[in-house]
């Protein structure tokens, strides 16, 4: 449980909020590469951290993220004409560069100086790993570019998707940290999903439904180990890293691609769930990539023309009570991503954490909240840079290992949890 004021603090990420300032310390993914596909392409509306912005790839290939609304009368620049190195508002012809600088006010004399006095709020935009990323903090504190492994391997080794999720970001993140739900909610998928099935470790998942959890603070966030019994008294460990504020990785299964998420606030009642798959040392096989496109694994099928899942609250997530009864799916909702999202959205836009009843296996969630609140306070009061900004914290992997009972996963799997270029993931 959180106190009401703590729940407010941790869920609000708009400008001027403590958690919003924390988020503004990081590079965040906001668009897929396919959304700004060529120089001079149509601009794209973006809402992130409760700010309405517009992403522009101008006719010269320069990238920028600027205030969505024209400084003149407040018309949306989504209607803008992307031409000659700027975005022109079609209402009265005001033109802005990707840095937000006003380039032209046609109705004003050139020497009036008016144009030089106008600038829209702007943020940097970079492309990396199949996505466009922005940094919305103070320019003087802009960190190094993101170094997550999925974003640095060759394009043929990775796949990235995003989906709109209609609840606060923290509900979604907590699902990524909460390993104890996997044996229940997703139990039907281990044997059937093409991106999970066949791994040697699956038998331990299905053979021991009462995992024991071990939560360890590390530099960037947390390591959450789920321990199940294996042969000869050994333990099968699945190790999930969480790096602040919103990055999680799922432990691998066999030689399947490794996957994970970012949970990026759109506003306080919506977020974008980013889902990536990659293999550290080989290209994705055509059938793997196709399965991801088809919505298997952690990805979803989309409502046509959108990034909204095909199964969504407007169609009751395509609930199938027969499949639930048969046990094909445990909740009646198909697909791992929507099994999670449907329940997280059902909590309401912002769940009231003063009413919840956590148990000791929820320690991963408890500790993540504590670290976020602590870091937000340290940033607000002392200007301390939060964990996860340093690219060294980003060079992390999930892992699945079998260890003797007397070995701490943090030590025994220390190498496995580090990015090692050219070395495959550690998996069972």
């Amino acid at each position: 449980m959180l106190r009401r004021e703590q729940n407010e603090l941790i869920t609000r990420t708009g400008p001027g909020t403590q958690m919003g300032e924390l988020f503004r310390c990081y590079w965040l993914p906001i668009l897929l590469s396919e959304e700004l596909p060529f120089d001079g392409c149509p601009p794209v509306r973006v809402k992130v951290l409760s700010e309405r912005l517009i992403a522009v790839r101008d006719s010269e290939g320069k990238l920028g993220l600027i205030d969505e609304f024209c400084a003149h009368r407040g018309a949306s620049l989504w209607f803008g004409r992307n031409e000659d190195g700027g975005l022109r508002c079609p209402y009265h012809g005001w033109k802005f560069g990707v840095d937000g600088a006003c380039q032209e006010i046609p109705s004003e004399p050139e020497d009036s100086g008016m144009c030089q006095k106008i600038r829209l709020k702007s943020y940097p935009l970079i492309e990396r790993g199949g996505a466009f990323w922005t940094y919305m903090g103070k320019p003087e504190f802009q960190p190094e570019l993101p170094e997550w492994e999925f974003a640095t391997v060759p394009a043929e080794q990775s796949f990235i998707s995003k989906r709109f999720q209609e609840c606060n970001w923290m509900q979604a993140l907590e699902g990524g940290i909460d390993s104890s739900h996997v044996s229940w909610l997703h139990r039907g998928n281990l044997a059937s999903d093409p991106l999970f099935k066949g791994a040697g470790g699956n038998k331990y998942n299905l053979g021991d439904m009462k995992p024991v959890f071990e939560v360890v603070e590390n530099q960037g966030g947390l390591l959450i180990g789920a321990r199940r019994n294996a042969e000869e008294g050994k333990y099968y460990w699945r190790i999930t890293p969480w790096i602040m504020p919103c990055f999680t990785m799922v432990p691998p299964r066999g030689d399947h691609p490794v996957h994970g998420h970012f949970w990026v606030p759109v506003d306080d009642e919506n977020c974008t769930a980013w889902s990536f798959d990659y293999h550290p040392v080989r290209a994705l096989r055509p059938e793997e990539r196709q399965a991801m496109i088809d919505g298997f694994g952690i990805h979803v099928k989309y409502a046509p023309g959108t990034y909204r899942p095909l199964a969504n609250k407007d169609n009751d997530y395509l609930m199938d009570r027969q499949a639930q009864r048969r046990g094909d799916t445990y909740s009646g909702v198909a697909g791992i991503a929507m099994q999670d999202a449907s329940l997280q959205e059902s909590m309401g836009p912002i769940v009231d954490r003063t009413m919840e009843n956590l148990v000791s296996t929820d320690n991963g969630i408890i500790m993540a909240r504590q670290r976020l609140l602590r870091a937000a306070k340290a940033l607000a009061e002392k200007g301390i840079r939060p964990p996860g900004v340093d690219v060294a914290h980003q060079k992390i992997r999930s892992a699945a290992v079998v260890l003797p009972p007397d070995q701490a996963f943090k030590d025994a799997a220390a190498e496995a949890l580090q990015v090692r270029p050219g070395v495959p993931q550690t998996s069972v």
Partner: protein
Amino acid sequence: MTLSESARANSAHEASFRSRYAQSTGRWASLIALDPASEIVVARVVASQPDRRRALALSQDVADEDWIAQLQARAQTLLDDAARADLVVMIATAGADAQAGALFGEACRLRGVPVTALVIAAPDTPDAALSRTLAPLRPMASMVVVAQGADYVDDMLHALRA
């Protein structure tokens, strides 16, 4: 257009109609310090919520012959106390010898009392020291937590309503 049941139920407006009645009674936590540094932590967190938290001591300052004579009775009392708690938390400092906690934890486990083992480790704690403390606790604990500061004990207990 008629909203689906989920679209209507998931709204902020509908969330305001959720039952506000209490769903659980207060929880009782038994805290067991496994080393002198942890005793200070336990004393502090118990003092801050004495109606919900209780310290259990695995050792007592009594003469040797009395200690042996009282061993069985004290062990029984400790186990009974632990069994009455909603939450049993063993707290150790990284590097401490946690064998006594392991024995008691195993007794709890055999009686079906789940135990959380919480090890407080400074960021610069050597891995070997942490492993030494964790190894005996791991087999009997239903949850193992390694935190970098003692303030996590308060936060965890509050989150668990204890």
